[in-house]
């Protein structure tokens, strides 16, 4: 079995929501919010919503959900839901695309864009606390064992939130497979696990199946 050039350090992560002083009650105000909200807020309502609602299949992001349930505008909701965070390595790009979609809606439907929502959208952000866990991994077998012991928040931290931290089109696990084990194919397969059609539990099971297949080879 290959031994890694550097161990994989598992961490635990915990999140606490902080409400920002900005809210939206219609599509026009959502657009203003997308202009002025902090990067942390855009991250919270997109990347981090996948962690908060890790048990839901088909949940995309808070903006799409609010536009559907709060504004009852399914066409805009559908477009916002189609935004795939894996395509982005910076919040600037992500914010620009979200903003463009809402702006196009407001331009095309100026009256509807001022309709009051059923509920208010509150821009928020997360405080993140990470603590290294007492175990690491130097082999795939050790990694698999560690993976099974991770909480949902820790798995989310390594598999989803890491994408923006690394500023690469990858995640902590794939990054380690590739750089420390030289297993580029496993890294690529791991990175292709669909975080939108899976829950975090089923994504973790898929990853474990990939690891088992690799060990069997």
């Amino acid at each position, binding site marked *: 079995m290959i031994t890694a050039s550097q161990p994989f350090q598992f961490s*635990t992560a*915990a*999140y*606490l*929501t*902080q*409400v920002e*002083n900005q*809210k939206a009650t219609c599509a026009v105000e959502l657009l203003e919010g997308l202009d002025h909200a902090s990067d942390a807020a855009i991250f919270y309502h997109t990347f981090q919503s996948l962690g*908060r*609602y*890790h*048990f*839901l299949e*088909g*949940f995309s992001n808070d903006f799409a*959900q609010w536009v*559907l*349930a*709060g504004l009852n505008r399914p066409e805009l909701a559908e477009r916002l839901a189609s935004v795939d965070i894996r395509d982005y390595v910076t919040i600037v790009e992500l914010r620009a695309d979200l903003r463009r979609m809402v702006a196009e809606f407001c331009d095309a439907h100026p009256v509807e864009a001022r309709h009051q929502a*059923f*509920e*208010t959208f*509150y821009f*928020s952000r997360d*405080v993140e*606390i990470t*603590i290294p*866990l007492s175990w690491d991994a130097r082999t795939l077998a050790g990694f698999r064992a560690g993976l099974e*012991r*991770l*909480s*949902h*928040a*820790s798995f989310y931290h390594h598999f989803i939130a890491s994408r923006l931290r690394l500023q690469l089109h990858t995640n902590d696990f794939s990054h380690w497979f590739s750089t420390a084990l030289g297993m580029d194919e496993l890294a690529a397969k791991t990175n292709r696990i669909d975080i939108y059609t899976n829950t975090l539990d089923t994504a973790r099971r898929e990853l474990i199946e990939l690891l088992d297949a690799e060990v069997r080879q």
Partner: protein
Amino acid sequence: MTTVAERNALSLDQYVPLLGSAEVEELRTLAGPLEGSSVVMVNTTAVGGGVAELLSRTIPLMRELGLEPRWEVMRGAQEFFEVTKRFHNALHGRSLEITARDFEIFLEYNRRNRQSLSLDGRFIVIHDPQPAALVEGRAAGDSRRWIWRCHIDLSRPDPAVWNFLEPFVARYDGSIFSSPEFSRQLSIPQYLVYPSIDPLTDKNRELEPEFIERVVSGFGIDARRPILTQISRFDRLKDPVGVVRSYRLVKRYFDCQLVLAGGGADDDPEGSAVLAEVREEAGNDADIHLLELPASSPLEINALQRASTIVIQKSLREGFGLTVAEALWKKKPVVASAVGGIPLQVIHKHTGLLAHSVEGTAYQIRYLLSHPDLARRLGEQGHEHVRESFLITGNVKRYLTLFLHLTRSG
């Protein structure tokens, strides 16, 4: 004596079958750097009310995790609590005359308690407005971290009372609200910690099927036909008459029953009037069950929720509405109004269905009765949502996260 003795101690290990060992282990990891940290919680009552109940559950868990929590209760005479009751109503938006003497009384009792309470913790958590001015004596360079935990809805406060309180709130290191909708624009950070339920209490724990059957049949409910249930006191803001009207629209297509169960209305004139209105609306329909339960009937409420096909919460206004989380924890599909804290619990089409009218409520109920697979999926996802966000263990985890954050941010 102002320090509250601990009771109701449940071990963290008892939560492992419900949460998984990884989630419980995570709590221990987060608590590691905080070992030995003293935490002082301050409120105004040791028994009765949601805050006391929450503290009685939270503090033993913090202690098991290695922190040193203590619960102090503020003391006051009748004049103080009369003032704080008026403050409470004014902060909820009622227009009341608050006099200069009221403000003096408020400050005087806060000053007295500052002398008598032991506020020597590393973290001081002040619950609700009554003790908010305890922070007044905070010296420059005070290394203690002061947190104001506001359990009430501050979205539409009386300006006079809020303008009086705000300078005190501004002296804290951070505030905690139960919902973004209840918060205000503040100069200090506002964190979000949802109210929570304890899955091990009588109101939420698993029940034997035989017990559920006994409770249901005891109330004359037919367990073989669909049961629609709303658990709420008989209050116009819970719209029980609207629930009956929704049920009638459903009844045209489905042979179902309606259960409206709430606290007894004998000592509440408004509750008695509302119950009379509901009785009149229900007429002589034998499939409508109006149940006046004793003030504390956790096992019966638990059984009724578990026996239900669909749980309704058709409130016109709502606080957080934790009865929704209770139903979701029991994997029940929920149809509820999009008011107060309900949309935080019911993520439309994911963990339940939201409605905005009598007709909408009826339509969503009919849809779920026609699509049992969807109803089951919403219930299961609702259960996961509660496990993630609305359990007592999550409440503890968010406190740990906040303490770590305040420690690291200096």
